[in-house]
């Protein structure tokens, strides 16, 4: 067990280093930060001096060493655009993105799993077909269109929900949360749904497929033969056994959720990492972009680790070796 986790962590470090390198290789190319940092009237030589100060003229490898070196020292550098410490900027945006992503995930689970079970148990039902079809259409509309539509329906026409931002947030030990105020939740709803649609469909279809498989398995038929109550049969016995694959996929997808939050955040002006990242691209804010990518990689790695631990929690076969 310990061995297994350690192994996983070593791999994680490898992954993050690789991502850091890729991220860094991006730097050279997205554009010229200087022209973004300076005004129209700034003379060419002033620009050159700035470029020199920022070490943009140093050789690539040297810059990479410095980048990773500083990062390992915990020094994430300063934003070209706002001159703030990148660590602070990202840190202040993490809660927004994480809350959005997690809530989206929860929504997709709360709806997706039951829907999956239902559609699996009544494969030919009319409702099933409608559910399958609508979700399919749902995932076929680009996220950004869905987002804007939701904004105009619920924000403008009906005026029920805010159209942008996080609403009322609350500081809890440095974590700025919108989960404790009502209008925080109101603000969270639309973006979370927009982001959740894809996950929802995925989860539902996955649960459906797995359920249909499991319902054919011997131990389910044996449970039937013993007259185990239907509810327990479907949930305690069948659903539980579908969870391992479902968790895997969802874990793998979480990276996608974070990434797609870029779109959602830009549509809803949601002050998360994704929005920051987009702005940074526009301003060629190299340090911010780099750190963002690494942070994303970190989350991905983290989630994978959690998924592995969840397996162990769910499946006793992974917990203990045979004793008999």
């Amino acid at each position, binding site marked *: 067990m310990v*061995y297994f986790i350690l192994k996983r962590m070593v791999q994680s470090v490898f992954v993050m280093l690789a991502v850091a390198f890729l991220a860094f290789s991006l730097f050279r190319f997205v554009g010229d930060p200087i022209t973004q940092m300076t005004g129209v009237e700034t003379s060419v030589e002033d620009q050159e001096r700035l470029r020199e100060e920022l070490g943009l003229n140093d050789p690539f490898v040297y810059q990479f060493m410095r980048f990773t070196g500083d990062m390992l020292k915990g020094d994430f550098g300063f934003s070209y655009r706002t001159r703030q410490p990148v660590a602070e900027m990202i840190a202040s945006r993490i809660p927004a993105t994480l809350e959005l992503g997690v809530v989206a995930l929860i929504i997709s689970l709360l709806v997706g799993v039951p829907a999956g079970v239902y559609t699996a148990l009544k494969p030919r039902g009319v409702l099933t077909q409608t559910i399958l079809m609508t979700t399919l259409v749902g995932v076929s509309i680009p996220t950004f269109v869905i987002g804007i539509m939701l904004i105009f329906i619920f924000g403008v026409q009906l005026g029920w929900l805010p159209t942008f931002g996080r609403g009322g947030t609350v500081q809890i030990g440095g974590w700025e949360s919108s989960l404790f105020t009502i209008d925080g939740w109101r603000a969270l709803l639309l973006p979370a749904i927009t982001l959740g649609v894809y996950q929802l469909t995925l989860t539902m279809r996955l649960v459906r497929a797995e359920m249909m498989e499991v319902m054919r398995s011997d131990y389910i038929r044996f449970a039937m033969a013993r007259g185990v109550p239907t509810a327990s049969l479907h949930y305690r016995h069948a659903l539980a056994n579908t969870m391992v694959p479902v968790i895997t996929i969802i874990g793998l997808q979480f990276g996608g959720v974070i990434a797609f939050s870029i779109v959602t955040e830009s549509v809803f002006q949601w002050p998360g990492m994704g929005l920051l990242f987009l702005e940074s691209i526009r301003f060629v804010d190299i340090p911010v972009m780099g750190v963002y990518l690494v942070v994303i990689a970190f989350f991905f790695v983290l989630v994978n680790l959690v998924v592995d631990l969840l397996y162990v929690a769910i499946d006793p076969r992974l917990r203990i070796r045979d*004793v008999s």
Partner: protein
Amino acid sequence: MLTIKGLSVKFPTRFGDFTAIEDVDMTINPGEIHGLVGESGAGKSTVGAAVIGLLQTPGYVANGALTLGDTDLRTLSPSEAHKVRGDRISMIFQDPQTSLNPLMTIERQLIETIQTHSDASESEARKRAVDLLEEIGIKNAAERIKAYPHQFSGGMRQRVVIALAISTDPELIIADEPTTALDVAVQSQVLDLIQRLAKERQIAFMLITHDIGVIAQVADCVTVMRKGRVMETGVTAQVLGKPQHRYTQQLMDSVPPLDRKIDRFRVPDADDTIANNGDMAEDWLLEGAQHVRTGLSLRNLTVKFAGQRTSIFRKPPPYVALDDVTLNIEPGSIMGLVGESGSGKSTLAKAITGLVTPSDGIMELGGSVLPFGKSRDRDHPSRQLIQMVFQDPYSSLNSRHKIGDILTEPLWFYGFVKDAQEREKLAAAMLSLVGMQPDAISKYPHQFSGGQRQRIAVARALLARPRFLICDEPTSALDVSIQAEILNLLKDLQAKFGLTILFISHNLAVVRQMADNTAVLRNGKIEEVGETNALYTAPQAEYTKSLMDLTPMMPTTWQT
């Protein structure tokens, strides 16, 4: 008591209804074990499923009567039927590995079942559960009950399954191939248990199996089915002892006896195409180095597998699959290799064919040393001289390749025949040599039955002009009658072409029919080797003795 009258079950398909079983009658009294025997496709399981009301959709009971005691099972509403299940009828499945929920402790599964059918309190239920486990022979149940299914061995797991089945003491238990997946030792224990339960608890058992030996040993009555219809039914001794129906007789003929060797099975409608128009293939094989008979000798062969690593610091102890095995297979002879699952039979085959790499020992094929696994280069002669017939004819043929391609592959691969038409013709001839229609060439594997596929597999092996043939459980996936055909085929070919054969099987009776010499393998060690008849009549090793005793067999008086 259970009464079945004129039962037929239909499955609606795209092309009209398909009748799975038709007009089946049978009665089972309390405490009676009623064997239901027949080959695959006979509809045995369908009868059981119909009785307990768990027919695979869209199957349905077309007509007939099903009554348990005084309840008409057919008129029950779904919810009532669900209540009857477990409460009065229960079931035991074939594979203990898959019939328990892997995520729940034995305790939870037992308590849940018990509480479903009685208003026992948690603690009462637990007590009942523990008692049950004790009763079916699980030591210190009180604490083992906390374990998960995967923590029990196969046999123990089947006991747990039985415990679950009887936990609500039902009147009838349908046991569908309850011992097929088990080794003889465990099998006999489970069978004893079933007999005991039938006697003590007066439970009626419907024992569905393809193994006539099992029926002969435990069943009070037997019903023989074929293609969904009942051929013959009655008291076991009656039906199997003096079979009236021709089919039953054929069946009995093709069951290999354990206590003697019969040179050839009397196979029902055996086609004798083998002689004619297989000549071309036969000549081709004989023009190979047929006069050279190639033996194989293994000296102190040891195979180790790396264990599951659990710590960074110490390497896990290796798992020893073959332990210092020494075995000498005479040129042109058939060496039988028997042993329970996990005894290392297949590992031995893999070692010889180079799929696994022994850690120690020497292998010699016809006097020249066989390089181990990876170090055996791809064009080493042994790769052609040694061929293999596998256990599962369904996975041993590439389902996406035409039979023609499968058969001609060795011909061009070993460079025997340059011309493509030639290869085709030879392959076709070989098909008829193994007793199949040559036109099979243009078909795909899924278009053939298991037996036919196994014949094709044999043909493929022969087309490599092997001198040494490994047959790894070649018939254990087949029905007895088919088994008989294949065994006959192998015997003929061996005689014709002077092949040396390593015949691996868990079935002692089969091995006795086939092998000149027999080796008994256990936990990777050779327990005993010897001339087959000697070994069977006077086994030396304790283990061999116990195997003999435990293998279910028919009273000698029944032999026809």
